[in-house]
């Protein structure tokens, strides 16, 4: 078995282990045999209801959101040729969140929140990539700074709208820090459909992604319509980000950490990096969410706090390494 295939198999195993840990952990103690039994034979017992109605949707949502954010991060890193790109850091998640909030306020009765989130996400990516594509080139760090400023502005606008209209600090808190509490089966289905579309779409374009990560001029010479490819990728990444943000608010750094670890393990060929990053992002967020809901004496904290505390230092290390490579620009 080749090295990338071995890593792929191990990533799949890691996801299975994370799923079990996530289902097993919670305020109501459950033994492994009870867990297995209630998974195989759903019934009306309390444990079965806890597993099927509370833990399973939540753990699956964590996996799907983690996979979605990892996929978006992988795409942005190749598209922007920027190792620091992440949907949270470059403002895509905030764009989705603002779009979702606007929809919520304008059409409160309609289930169009993900549509608003999608429009907001795509608009924010477009703004960030436009900044990255100025003639003469822009440094990796500048793009991140512009993206971060964008994300702060969009986040503040969202908070302002919510304060004015909803006056509900709990909701703002949820959006800003991200949380998977109260996720229901319909949202899990939405997340699964969006991630499936995203994975198949990016897999279809995996060699284009390899080519464009080398250079846009090279990609053009190979027969790629670079402008069309950019739109296809922005739409796919925007879709998965929008649905993830609609379900769970702003969760940072998963899209940064998972693709990096994946490329470190299997190299930058996207046909390997894609599945490893998605599986890794899924495991990472399940474990982060399990930590978030197991804090002693408090019970539950927003999962975004956990991913930020774990991913933030990672980001700083990458940032320092990148600026050193760029000669301190």
């Amino acid at each position: 078995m080749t090295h990338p295939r071995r890593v792929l198999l191990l990533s799949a195993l890691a996801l299975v282990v994370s799923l079990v840990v996530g289902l097993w952990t919670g305020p109501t103690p459950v033994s492994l045999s009870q867990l297995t039994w209630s998974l195989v034979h759903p019934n009306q017992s309390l444990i079965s209801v806890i597993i099927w109605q509370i833990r399973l949707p939540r753990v699956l949502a964590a996996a799907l959101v983690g996979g979605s954010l990892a996929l978006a991060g992988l795409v942005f890193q190749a598209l922007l040729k920027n190792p620091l790109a992440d949907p949270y850091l470059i403002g895509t998640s905030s764009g989705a969140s603002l779009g979702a909030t606007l929809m919520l306020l304008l059409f409160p009765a309609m289930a169009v929140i993900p549509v608003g989130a999608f429009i907001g996400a795509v608009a924010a990516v477009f703004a960030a990539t436009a900044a990255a594509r100025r003639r003469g080139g822009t440094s990796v760090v500048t793009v991140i700074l512009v993206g971060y400023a964008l994300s702060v502005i969009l986040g503040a606008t969202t908070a302002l709208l919510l304060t004015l209209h909803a006056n509900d600090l709990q909701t703002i808190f949820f959006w800003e820090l991200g949380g998977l509490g109260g996720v229901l089966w319909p949202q899990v289905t939405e997340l699964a459909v969006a991630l499936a579309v995203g994975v198949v779409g990016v897999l279809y374009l995996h060699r284009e992604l390899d080519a464009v990560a080398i250079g846009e001029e090279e990609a053009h010479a190979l027969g790629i319509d670079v402008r069309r490819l950019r739109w296809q990728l922005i739409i796919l990444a925007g879709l998965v980000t929008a649905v993830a943000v609609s379900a769970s608010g702003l969760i940072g750094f998963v899209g940064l950490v998972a693709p990096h670890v994946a490329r470190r393990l299997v190299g930058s060929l996207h046909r390997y990096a894609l599945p490893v990053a998605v599986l890794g992002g899924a495991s990472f967020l399940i474990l982060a969410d399990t930590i978030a809901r197991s804090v002693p004496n408090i019970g539950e904290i927003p999962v975004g706090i956990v991913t930020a505390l774990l991913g933030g230092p990672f980001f700083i290390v990458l940032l320092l390494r990148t600026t050193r490579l760029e000669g301190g620009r």
Partner: protein
Amino acid sequence: MSVLETRRLSFAYHRRLVVADMSITIHPGQLLAVVGPNGAGKSTLLRLLSGWFEPDSGQVLLGGAPVRSLRPQERARQVTLVPQMSEAAHDMPVEELVALGRLTRLSLRQRLLLSPLSAADQSAIDRALSAADVGELAKRPFRELSGGERSRARLAVALAQEARWLLLDEPEAHLDPGHAQTMMACLAAQAESGHGVVAAMHDLTLAAAFADRMLLMDQGRLVAVGEPSQVLTGPLVQQVYGGQLSVMANPDGGAPVVLPRR
């Protein structure tokens, strides 16, 4: 036989004309070396020929059709460009890099990894690897290659495309004299087998030794085009590059030699 031609081609960059009113016709089966000082517009000309840049006025015609009007897949089977090498290096294995040359020919099932590359694609990749002499390096990551090996690997990508027209921006850059010579011999062989090869170059002596024709440009304008002995004359070289170079007849009776002087 289709030709690659430009008609009154102009392109400005930040309001400065980089290619000015150029009309040239390039025939397949020849190695054309484009020479001229830094900023003469060589790279821009190649990018216009490849369809990457849109002309501000004039046209680039490939077999009579504007190159930018072709569908990207169709264009890539006609013409390809190897741009100047950037500093950034990726870790793709050489054979995967070369496989990108077959990108536009993949089926849906191949794109989704449900079936392997076709025999035709695989043999084109193998031919390209051996023509560029990188067969031994097939499994090595690009990042670990030396400068000369990287240049050959990038050439192999273009060869795998099997495009009729091969454009190269400074193929001899970063190469020692021996490797530069091997590279040029490979390009000359491609021209001999019927491809049209256009290479922007800085090494005038090397260009003259291998090119069938040379095109000298300065400040975006065509200065001279023709056989190396017609283009590399003392007066023209001194006019374009300054007075510190002299052109000598080759003692072996071949193409002219450009010598620096103190």
